[in-house]
């Protein structure tokens, strides 16, 4: 009995020791990065720049809320950018008739894409990488057909006031929506059986199944949730740029996955969460923002981004794990 207790204590300490750097890396990185950018350019720490960053991070963070759930279950969704573009086009096409209520169609469009992804993956058992790579490609085609390659403008005053206006203190409305979505996502992932089931599937699908969790149903719901988030992201993005373009969100899936992974949710699933993705999204966005302010060339920016992604995963990866389970 006593021996057992000491075993527990020491491994608890080990856990804490492991935790100290690995788990705090994203926040440390974010703070250090802000300080460096702040020293290089005085404007970086201005209220104005802060709101710019807030507006810019919305699409990434809202999409990240969906992707976190998917990655938490140990799968992947590559269709982010195309779903985003699809829902943006649906928004732009329905605004003239429905005005503000076009948001319903945007959300439905996203959820529908997610449902299809989920069914193909969970019921059809097509690996999620392939299933969503298929919809990534196919949906882009749909978007091209709908737009004929020409941007669809959004002119509805009311719609634009609601979805890209500013409220008190000049806080952008999109940021307010974003905060609400983040809170709701957090509650769903951490406080509901659905969220815990999604996490359990990522931690050990076989264990979850034998524990009586409806794995297939949960997976489909996770993809629907993700699609919904991408749909909302598309809506807010189209409102911000006043149009839906055919190329909207191309390559965006990599930014979203990077945000989730840099935030500490590994592609194998099970651990991590919303808090990490918030940090990850801000890291990616502030990195761009800061480098832009420094006037770094896009080519160099690309190199830095790639290195940061690999570095973050390199540092946060749990190398002791394999040795433990073996």
């Amino acid at each position, binding site marked *: 009995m006593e021996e057992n207790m000491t075993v527990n204590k020491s*491994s608890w300490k080990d*856990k804490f020791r492991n935790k100290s750097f690995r788990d705090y890396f994203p926040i440390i990185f974010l703070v250090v990065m802000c300080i460096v950018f702040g020293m290089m350019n005085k404007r970086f720490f201005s209220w104005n720049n802060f709101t710019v960053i807030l507006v810019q991070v919305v699409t990434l963070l809202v999409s990240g809320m969906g992707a976190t759930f998917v990655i938490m279950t140990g799968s992947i969704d590559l269709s982010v950018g195309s779903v985003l573009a699809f829902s943006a086009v649906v928004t732009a096409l329905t605004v003239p008739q429905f005005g503000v209520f076009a948001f319903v169609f945007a959300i439905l469009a996203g959820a529908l894409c997610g449902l299809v992804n989920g069914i193909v993956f969970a019921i059809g058992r097509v690996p999620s990488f392939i299933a969503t790579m298929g919809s990534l490609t196919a949906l882009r085609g749909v978007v091209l057909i709908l737009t004929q390659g020409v941007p669809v403008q959004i002119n509805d005053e009311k719609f634009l006031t609601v979805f890209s206006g500013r409220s008190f203190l000049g806080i952008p409305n999109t940021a307010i929506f974003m905060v609400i979505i983040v809170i709701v996502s957090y509650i769903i992932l951490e406080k509901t059986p659905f969220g815990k089931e999604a996490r359990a599937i990522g*931690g050990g699908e076989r264990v979850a199944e034998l*524990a*009586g969790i409806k794995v297939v149903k949960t997976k489909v719901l996770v993809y629907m949730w993700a699609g919904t988030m991408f749909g909302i992201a598309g809506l807010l993005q189209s409102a911000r740029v006043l149009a839906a373009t055919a190329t909207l969100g191309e390559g965006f899936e990599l930014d979203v996955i990077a945000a989730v992974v840099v935030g500490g949710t590994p592609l194998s699933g099970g651990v991590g969460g919303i808090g990490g993705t918030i940090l990850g999204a801000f890291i990616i966005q502030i990195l761009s923002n800061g480098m832009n302010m420094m006037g770094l060339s896009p080519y160099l920016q690309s190199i830095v981004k790639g290195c940061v992604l690999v570095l973050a995963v390199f540092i946060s990866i749990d190398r002791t794990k394999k040795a433990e389970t073996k």
Partner: protein
Amino acid sequence: MDFTVKNVSKRFGPTVAVDNVSVRFAAGEIRAIVGENGAGKSTLLKIVSGIHKRDSGEVYLDDKPFNPENYVQAATEGVAYVFQETTINPYLGIAENIFINRLREFRTPLGLINRKKLNSAAQKILDDIGVDFKATDPIQSLNLGQWKTIEVARGLAYDPKVIFFDESTAFLNYNEVKAFLNIVKRLKERGMAIGIVTHHMNEIFELADTATVMKDGRWVADKKIKDITQDEIQQLMVGRKLSAIYPDKKEVLSDEITMKVEGLSCGDQLKDVTFELHKGEILGIGGLKGAGGDELLSIIYGDEKETAGKIWVENTEYAHKNPHDAMKNGFSMLPGERTIEGLITTFSIKDNINMGAMKKKGILTDLAKETEVANEMIQKVTIKTNSCEMPCDSLSGGNMQKVVIAKCLATNPKILLLNNPTRGIDVGARLEIYTVISELAKEGMSILMLSEDLGELIGVSDRTMILRRGEVSKMYEFDEKPTEESMITYML
């Protein structure tokens, strides 16, 4: 030629797998290594053929010290080992499988594989064994027995002096076994020293010249096969008194039937299994690996599909579609693989316990209730931990298993399915688990306990059902007292 093993020992963590064992293999002789599951037979052979490192002891091949770094070196130097598990790659050819780790030897100057040379080398080995297929045949057209022969050929390709077979016949059918035994006999005539591990008594008596009996990692006896009977070997294998680690049994068995299983079949694995489970009963299921016990539990829990048969729970037919459905119908299962199927080791004790039965408050999880349930369970099954928030990988194997039991109990089951509840667990934790199981039964829970541990079946079960090749070979009733010897007879 002879191969001598002297005072070899091997530990895996806290368990001593092989404890100071000495044995000698002589040319032209087949020696059977026999013992119960976990007696250390396979480990012993794996140590002497370079797969495991020994902790102490010496091994000599023809009086020269034999200390191979790995399996390939052991084989090259004259000691080959044929694995229990199938190691055939069905997407490669027969010759490629035989020379799988030596394909470099068949390279042309350009670095490509000289297929002709490879095939003829393989054919020569196959001809020496005397098989009914060619090295160029498609591998998919062969049966499991022939696949085993390919693995034998792989061992023989090193031209060894000693060869070991670890449960080579475990997955073969009658004819395949016969063909395989003939091959082993021919190898003996070629003057090789041969060691076999098998659970099948008839094979030992047909094949072996001598037998070494092992028990709990220790050497028990060396016997000449012609001087000993099957019963005597089995007694040597078991040779242990039941200790007091088992709780007192109940006086009477309730007449109330909780579950009725009728004619359950699943291909070759399970054939027409029929039984009843009483209220508050612990029904033990015994049998060798692959006898159908795992399938039986999986089917009842809805994780596998039967080909025929029906299950009734309290007189209503029960569909057992999937584990979720089973749980809703009052079943709970403790799976056989603790860390793969039983719990998520990186998650906390609390999250594991509540995984099957998340408590809800409206649409949200009732976190307070979950903590309460977890703490209650920690008390009930005596999990040794400081807090229910601790991750499971901080626990010992025995305590992890208790978490799995707690997870099962958190769903309030009527029927508990246990797959080897004490596998790989030390005696102290075993005792506690037996106490919990027996308490649950007294509270009226019906329990189906599959176990490879005969002592456990005898000590804990109210009745015991023995399976042999998917069929019920014996049902020990409540007033019957099974012995390990008689159980083994029904298993083989």
